[in-house]
């Protein structure tokens, strides 16, 4: 399991850079991962990230459509915050596993 230094912290990550343990996450870690993806985190970003983390703690995984119904952002805004792959990038920055689609 690769160990990566993120925001001065030794963190276990997958080969694609997703955190192995969501409890190793903090806001500085989020900012560091986001800057690698060329995203500057705003309060709105953190609202979404905290929502995803809250759901993940309850064992729920979300789709883009469900985030769009969260009341925090609609789908278009979600794309603007995390361009190209909102679910993949938001999960990575939120310290959550890579979203799996169950086909």
């Amino acid at each position, binding site marked *: 399991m690769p160990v990566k230094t993120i925001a001065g912290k030794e963190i276990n990550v997958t080969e694609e850079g997703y955190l192995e343990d969501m409890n190793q996450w903090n806001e500085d870690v989020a900012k560091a991962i986001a800057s690698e993806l060329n995203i500057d985190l705003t309060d709105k970003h953190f609202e979404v990230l905290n929502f995803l983390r809250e759901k993940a703690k309850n064992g729920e995984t979300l789709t883009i*459509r469900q985030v769009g119904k969260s009341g925090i952002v609609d*789908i278009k805004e979600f794309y603007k915050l995390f361009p190209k792959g909102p679910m993949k990038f938001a999960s990575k920055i939120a310290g959550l596993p890579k979203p799996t689609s169950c086909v």
Partner: protein
Amino acid sequence: MKKLIILGAGTAGTMMLNKLYHELDQNEWELTIVDQSKEHYYQPGFLFIPFGIYKKKDVIKPKYNFFPPGVNVIFSPIDRVEGENNKVYLENGQTLDYDFLIIATGTQTRPSETPGLQDKLWYKDIFDFYTLEGALKLHDKLKEWEGGDLIMCIPELPYKCPVAPIEFVCLADDYFTKAGIRDKVNIKYATLMSGAFTKPIASKMLGDMLAEKNIEIIPDFYLESVDNDAKKIISYDGREVDFDLLTIVPVNMGSDMIARSGLGDDMNYVKIDKQTLQSVHFDNIFAIGDAGNLPTSKAGSVAHFSGEILFENILAAIDGRELKAKFDGHANCYIESGKGKATLIDFNYDTEPLPGEYPLPGIGPFSLLKETKMNHYGKLIFRWIYWHMLLKGKELPVEANMSMVGKKVS
């Protein structure tokens, strides 16, 4: 008398009814099945209708043909389940009591979830093939169509039969080649996934297969709306794709009855334990088939395999024993690839589709992740197996949980 009710008489519900009918003592148990429609559709056959390979008569039989004697059959839409009081309310005004309840109400297409989809081009230049009506109308369209941009679009996960759109574009390639107009047709595959399929090895194999057939994949395309005037589909990140003919898998959702009963997730799929299939809310409610929120394919094979597990667990629950049978998410899909060939994938929650032979190593007769004529015959003969064995709850000579035997791990 103790009462067991099955909601939904599709593939999963009918199969469970037959299995339980043969096992439960008819002097002790009253079995009831509820459905809103009297016709049973062989849904895997819908895919072949647009190309004239199957006709309407090949995919419909009366539901009554598959119900054992002596069970209560009620044709009515369902209003809701009241789990606290073990009651089911039907729209025909009846109220049913139960000791055990199996929900098998499936998944439905919801074109209304996508703006512009069910507008003036619906069933003129835009079609689904997940309903009999859509498949038949698409058949009429293909007979007269002279070519242009054919876009296959997948806007949301999960959806029923994840390989059907891949099969559709392969069969379309074959169909237009035979019609002598393949050079006038651009086939494109716009999907919210990052490739032809979700799991890496199958995605690569199926992606290569589409490339060989000159079918372009447009990945990560999350559909926002359809512009009927400009004949474009538009994604949330602002990309636009022109179409002359659009075939689409409309957003899938479970029955609204699930939402009214408070038993489901945001997409109206019944929240169940992914191994035991028991409702997370009530110990005497189970779900099977597309109606549940299992993180695996919505497919007949999954209904079949998980049916074996549910059968054991229902009997255990009736006796008050621990639910020992655990489902592993096993799915098995024949993928029709055109020109009389098909490929096959076999996988579960933890193991992605791998190459090899199925079900027996070195013998097969079916090949995994490889196009063969034998796989195609497997797909065709399945229709007979479906009507004569699967629905009637007879055992098939394959394991319920996935086996690594015959699979090649690199």
